[in-house]
């Protein structure tokens, strides 16, 4: 949105927020959503996410994928309800449809197919499906708001090779799509076999050649700049790193199992999990020390980033508190209208604050327009700005 001149002089300059801040916000929301099955609270959270995405989404191609996540969330709800109805077994008293029960052989004793369709089982499936769908929507919002290429800049140095491979993949993929388009247009001008398999082969070979050429050129360029050299790490350092990583892995596995299985001794649950995470973190630090690399124009954390991340953490904290102290609000009974407490409402609305706290995004139209017209001239430029998505 264009900034109006009569707004305050410190009108917010459009910039991209640090991607990790968006991810912290989204994960906080997903954590808060996972701790409740109250459909009203979840739908309100969905509304907040939609508001933030609508307000702060840029127009890059990866930002347009949010709709797919919404469709995926709807599919999750439908499947959850269907599975509940088909395999759930009779539960509840308000029978909507008396479907016959499909008799199953004895060796599948625990499963009942169909049977009377009750309102209670429908609602239980709906509530649970909504919870899963909200988690998916939160992750989708993070994908739509945070620039994935800039996120790769924040990858810890220990995962440097993985990060490099991901950067190459993410940069090369748009070029791949573009070369497919180019080859297909060229093929239409030429005569050739028209069968489906033959047409595919005509398309595939030049595209693969193109991709191979590009990769070789990229590899040569990266090799010149020193990518692919493993740093100087002494055997002792390598042993330490390996030991720390293994310890961390074992600790996390044991901790996760003990947290989920309530019959396991409590000493193994959270303490082991914390120890495992600490060991894994130490291992990553130790592994990253051998990699020497610099970052070009690293993203800094400004107050806006902290505010956005803080909103996510606050939502998660409120969700955790409500699930512990206001159990009837967090896990409502299916027999009556679910109640909503003021705290739960506040938690869902806090999630929408980044719509105003975060700076407006940089749009490609503004990016391509010449400098003077953007700052002073409120009239739109006469020439349409090129919409090349090169970033």
């Amino acid at each position: 949105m264009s900034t109006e001149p009569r707004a305050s002089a410190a009108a917010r300059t459009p910039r991209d927020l640090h991607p990790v801040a968006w991810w912290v916000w989204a994960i906080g929301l997903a954590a808060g959503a996972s701790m409740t099955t109250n459909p009203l609270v979840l739908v309100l959270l969905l509304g907040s996410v939609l508001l933030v995405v609508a307000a702060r989404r840029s127009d890059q191609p990866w930002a347009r994928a949010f709709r797919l996540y919404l469709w995926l969330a709807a599919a999750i709800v439908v499947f959850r309800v269907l599975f509940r109805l088909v395999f759930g077994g009779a539960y509840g008293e308000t029978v909507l449809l008396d479907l016959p029960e499909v008799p199953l052989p004895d060796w599948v004793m625990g499963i009942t197919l169909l049977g009377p369709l009750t309102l209670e089982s429908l609602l239980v499936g709906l509530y649970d499906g909504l919870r899963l769908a909200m988690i998916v929507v939160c992750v989708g919002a993070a994908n739509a708001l945070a620039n994935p290429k800039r996120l790769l800049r924040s990858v810890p140095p220990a995962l440097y090779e993985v990060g490099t491979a991901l950067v190459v993949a993410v940069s090369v993929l748009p070029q791949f799509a573009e070369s497919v388009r180019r080859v297909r247009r060229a093929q239409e001008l030429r005569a050739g076999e028209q069968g489906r398999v033959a047409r595919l082969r005509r398309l595939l070979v030049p595209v693969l050649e193109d991709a191979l050429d590009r990769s070789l050129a990229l590899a040569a360029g990266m090799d010149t700049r020193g990518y692919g050299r493993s740093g100087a790490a002494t055997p002792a350092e390598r042993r330490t790193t390996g030991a720390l990583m293994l310890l961390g892995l074992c600790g996390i596995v044991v901790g996760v199992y003990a947290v989920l299985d309530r019959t396991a001794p409590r000493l193994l649950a959270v303490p082991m999990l914390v120890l495992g995470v600490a060991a894994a973190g130490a291992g990553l630090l130790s592994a990253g020390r051998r990699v020497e690399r610099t970052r070009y124009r690293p993203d800094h954390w400004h107050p806006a980033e902290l505010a956005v991340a803080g909103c996510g953490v606050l939502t998660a904290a409120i969700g955790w508190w409500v699930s512990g102290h206001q159990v009837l609000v967090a896990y409502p009974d299916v027999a009556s209208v679910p109640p909503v407490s003021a705290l739960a409402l506040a938690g869902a609305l806090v999630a929408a604050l980044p719509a105003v706290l975060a700076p407006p995004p940089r749009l490609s139209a503004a990016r391509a327009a010449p400098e003077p017209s953007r700052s002073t001239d409120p009239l739109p430029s006469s020439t349409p700005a090129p919409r090349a998505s090169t970033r």
Partner: protein
Amino acid sequence: MSTGARAAAALLAGLLFLAGLPTAPSAGAATCTDGRGVSVVVDFGALGGGVQDTCDADGGGKSAATIFADSGVALTYAQRAAGFVCRVEGVPSSDPCINAAPADAYWGLWWSDGRTGTWVYSSIGTSSLTVPAGGSVAFAWNSGARTQPGVAPPVAAAPAAPSSPRPTPSTGGGPGGSAPTPVTGSGDGSAPGSAPGTGAGAGSAAGGDAPTAAPTPTAGDRPTGGPTREPKDRDTATASPSASVSPSAEQEDTGIEGTQESAATTDDAGLPGWLVAVVLAAVFAGAGLVAVRRRGTVRR
């Protein structure tokens, strides 16, 4: 003398038997002894409360949930695991009833078809399990290993032969069960310790001198150890919240939500519905408005 004494004894016994009648329902009537009703047993095990058994006279062929509701046993279901019974008669109240109980402390559902005399662990829930007439259904508290109910299921001696005109199960088989039969019928509790519980119950309510000539009664009861059935069992069971027979019988229609209040702290200051609806509408309208405005500026 002997005839007079015998007559007096019989009269006394009969009076005591009749006196035992009204207390019997509250004392927890016996399991069904003819082949038509369904015996309902609740074994509290380590939770305290002994073994509670009643008879649902017309429960044959119905689902276990219906049978329990008809017998006045209040069941509470977990909120996130639909169909999982987390509390029976309100115990254990320490369970928040949100998720399924852990594998070492939960209510196990057992049933018997009335012919084998053994309990079978049910792998389907209360809403799907149907118990045949003459069978039994039980909830037993497992702490640690899986434990069977302490009372063996009664075996119908004459399956599906409603021959002998035994008084009663037909009269009002609802909550509390219809007590009168068991005493005479305890004879067919062939499995040791089974109906004995029943015979002993009514017997001990009447002061221990059960007028029946049933062979099994009191002697058979003691060896079963833990689940010593006394008439007080029902009272201690009713001491736990919402566990008395009549209120739960009224609650049986509301079923789940009737016992829900005890599940959680009651500090949910629920906001009025219209406020929530207004906020929802405002948020979604705001999102739509922002999206439309942005689409408009981009097109410009």
